[in-house]
């Protein structure tokens, strides 16, 4: 249901982004204020201390080098992107006032007027060109180089206009621009000691591995924002220490807490848990090219053996969303709600198991702490399997070296996949026939051609239709079982208001700084 909001207008080719932009402003307004009667007016003032879950000398304020959640939060304090992803992962205009395209290949970006950097300089197309272009310079060492490579030409085409030409059509380009690596910096910036951006906070202190302090930017271009006077942000990598600091009142926001800790947090008065249903999943992998077990019937048998409700409640204390054996979450705008939910069904599992010809021999299923929750899931499936004559043998291997030694190599095992900004990126990385990370060695030429067509399709309804077919194909013919999407969980003082889930990650998709306020 949430996925429908963007498609309602029946988008026309080329005008899609303008429309999204217009709709986005309205949607964004409601995003800042929690809906319904609980709506409260944000309050100005106050300061908070917030802790993320990593901290090292590699902490950075160079947009091109961001690699951890804490980098994203820090950079979101100081910089803006051209677009930003909303709660349905749809791009909304930020520094770009509008984005239009010619056949999804030549993109014209109109910049917002009156935006200034922290040192007073006005935002110009030259800044945008520099910020985007530097990712293609190998000396910069940008993490986003693979994404940036599609931009063959980036040039200023007016006083407030930038035109970008892509090597091939990509209807998701506005989503790409909304990834944090494409934060806009000042033209010519090469030193990243004290960041200067257009963002909601001005850097007062940045010490890698220690802390970051931002003070309110009084000239921020979003009226009234941000609300807090100051944010001190640092990392406490140890989860217990982080939760204890919250419980002891030393910090007001603890990013990334485990389902186990949520009980402690909820039990204390004045503390709350913030849940972000997101696209992280630990998936069952049945390699279709493995001898013996490598057939679709065996994969289907295991898929039917997943007791999703029980897994959700027992492993994640309810903080998870049920999956339908494909990687798209119900909150995604491209989610296909018409596919019936696959349920726990030992009878169907037995039918497929008998058809698979695996017989009574022991089948090893590889689990590891590296794929969070895999051991628990496998044990539940082992239990269910024993009732239909399937003899699963849970083989535990260490987390260290798991991705190099077991993942993609075990006939039956588990993976753990983080959310990606767009359906296209996710499908290309993990399901395209020739993808190096095609986890179940699943090959479907029709899927590949749909993927390529959808990438250049700017009509939302048509794309949704294609992505919908692809979800069905993964669900019914691949060797991947996705029982659950587990949520990101953060703990915070109840007085801290204004956070709404953005499924990119926890802490409001790493973008809490400009959105939160302290209630009196």
């Amino acid at each position, binding site marked *: 249901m949430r996925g429908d909001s963007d498609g309602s207008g029946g988008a026309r080719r080329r005008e899609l982004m303008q429309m999204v932009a217009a709709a986005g402003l309205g949607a964004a307004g409601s995003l800042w204020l929690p809906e319904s009667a609980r709506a409260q007016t944000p309050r100005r003032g106050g300061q908070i201390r917030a802790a993320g879950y990593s901290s090292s*000398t590699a902490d950075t304020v160079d947009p091109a080098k961001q690699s951890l959640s804490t980098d994203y939060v820090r950079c979101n304090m100081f910089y803006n992107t051209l677009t930003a992803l909303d709660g349905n992962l749809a791009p909304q205009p930020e520094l770009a006032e509008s984005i239009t395209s010619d056949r999804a290949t030549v993109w014209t970006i109109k910049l917002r007027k009156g935006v200034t950097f922290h040192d007073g300089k006005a935002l110009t197309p030259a800044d945008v060109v520099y910020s985007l272009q530097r990712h293609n310079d*190998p000396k910069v060492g940008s993490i986003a180089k693979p994404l940036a490579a599609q931009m063959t030409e980036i040039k200023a085409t007016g006083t407030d206009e930038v035109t970008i030409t892509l090597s091939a059509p990509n209807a998701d380009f506005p989503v790409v621009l909304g990834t944090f690596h494409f934060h806009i910096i000042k033209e010519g910036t090469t030193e*990243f000691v004290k960041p200067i951006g257009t963002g909601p906070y001005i850097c007062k202190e940045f010490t890698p591995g220690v802390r970051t302090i931002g003070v309110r930017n009084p000239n921020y271009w979003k009226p009234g924002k941000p609300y807090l006077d100051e944010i*001190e942000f640092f990392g406490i990598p140890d989860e217990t*220490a982080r939760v*204890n600091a919250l419980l*002891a009142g*030393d910090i007001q926001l603890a990013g990334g807490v485990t389902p186990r800790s949520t009980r402690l947090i909820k039990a204390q008065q004045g503390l709350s848990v913030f849940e972000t249903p997101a696209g992280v999943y630990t998936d069952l992998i049945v390699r279709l090219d493995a001898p013996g077990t490598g057939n679709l019937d065996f994969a289907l048998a295991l898929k039917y053996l997943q007791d999703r409700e029980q897994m959700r409640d027992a492993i994640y204390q309810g903080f998870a969303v049920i999956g339908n054996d494909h990687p798209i979450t119900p909150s995604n705008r491209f989610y296909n709600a018409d596919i019936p939910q696959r349920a726990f069904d030992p009878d169907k599992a037995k039918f497929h198991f008998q058809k698979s010809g695996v017989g009574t021999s022991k089948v090893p299923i590889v689990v590891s702490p590296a794929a969070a929750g895999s051991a628990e899931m496998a044990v539940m499936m082992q239990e269910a399997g024993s009732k239909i004559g399937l003899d699963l043998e849970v083989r535990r291997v260490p987390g260290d070296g798991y991705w190099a030694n077991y993942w993609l190599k075990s006939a039956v095992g588990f993976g753990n996949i983080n959310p990606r900004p767009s359906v296209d990126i996710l499908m290309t990385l993990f399901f395209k026939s020739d993808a190096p990370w095609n986890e179940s060695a699943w090959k479907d030429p029709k899927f590949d051609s749909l993927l390529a067509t959808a990438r250049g399709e700017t009509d939302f309804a048509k794309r949704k239709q294609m992505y919908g077919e692809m979800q069905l194909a993964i669900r019914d013919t691949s060797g991947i079982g996705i029982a659950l999407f587990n949520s990101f969980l953060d703990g915070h003082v109840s007085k801290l208001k204004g956070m709404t889930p953005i499924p990119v990650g926890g802490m409001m998709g790493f973008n809490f700084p400009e959105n939160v306020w302290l209630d009196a």
Partner: protein
Amino acid sequence: MNAAMLRLIGVRLLLGALTLLIVSALVFTATELLPGDVAEALLGQSATPDAVAGLRAALHLDQPSWKRFLLWLGGLLSGDPGRSLVNRLPVVALIGNRLPNSLTLAGITACVTVPLALTLGITTAMWRGSRYDRIVGMGIIGIVSVPEFLIASVAVLVFAVKLRWLPALAFRSGPQDFWAMMRLLAMPVGTLALVGIGQMARMTRAALLTVLESSYIEMARLKGAGAIRIVLVHALPNALGPIVNAVALSTSFLLGGVIIVETIFNYPGLAKLMVDAVSTRDLPLVQACAMLFCAAYLSMVLIADIVAIVSNPRLRQR
């Protein structure tokens, strides 16, 4: 006598410099042998071959390693340990940021631990076999057997979460007055003291007992010297060597080896800095930290030896 002492110090300093050089070469080689380099560590999953090559060239990692080592050594000798490869900040600034924190923590811990440990060690040696000796001995073994992360976590749960007497994190921005500082550091210091006391106290007791069994102590006893006088005046000077060495080793450990306490109390000290540097293969920073720790060990041990010699007439005469 004084000249002999100076010669000893001179020789030890020279040997120390040689040790530092060897250690730096070893650490450099070991870091080179670790899989991956800083370019790969920085790029992570997007480490495509051309991206890695470009970043390597930008960081001068494409030069042969002996050349990089000599460049680094030359820089160090002229007083510049270089810049971090990861964040391009000067290594001096990164260490300068953390060193005062580590020194504060180590200093306060030593001030608490050393007198307590010596007192416990001396008194248990004096009343060997008494009920007091046995209770203290068992207590010390009990505490030493508990891993420090458990002590620290339980302390946080009790004093910060339940009682709310102390803050759970040991670090605050901005200047702190003396009492605020004590409150912040109470739990880290307490944890480290509990771990450190045991070793020092048992070493002191053992060293003293060996001496107390020797014949000249028996002689003193026969001459009618009191128990306290025997321990403090007759036995202690002879036992001081091993005791000071134990103290020196424990305190130099406090400078760079307290990663668990730094992690649990989120205290930005040198141990965490070095772990970061190793995990990102940040050679200049790794080298600088290694040099610093090594120099600290060497000088503590040197000071311990000098103290032992000065306090012991027999060694002094040689």
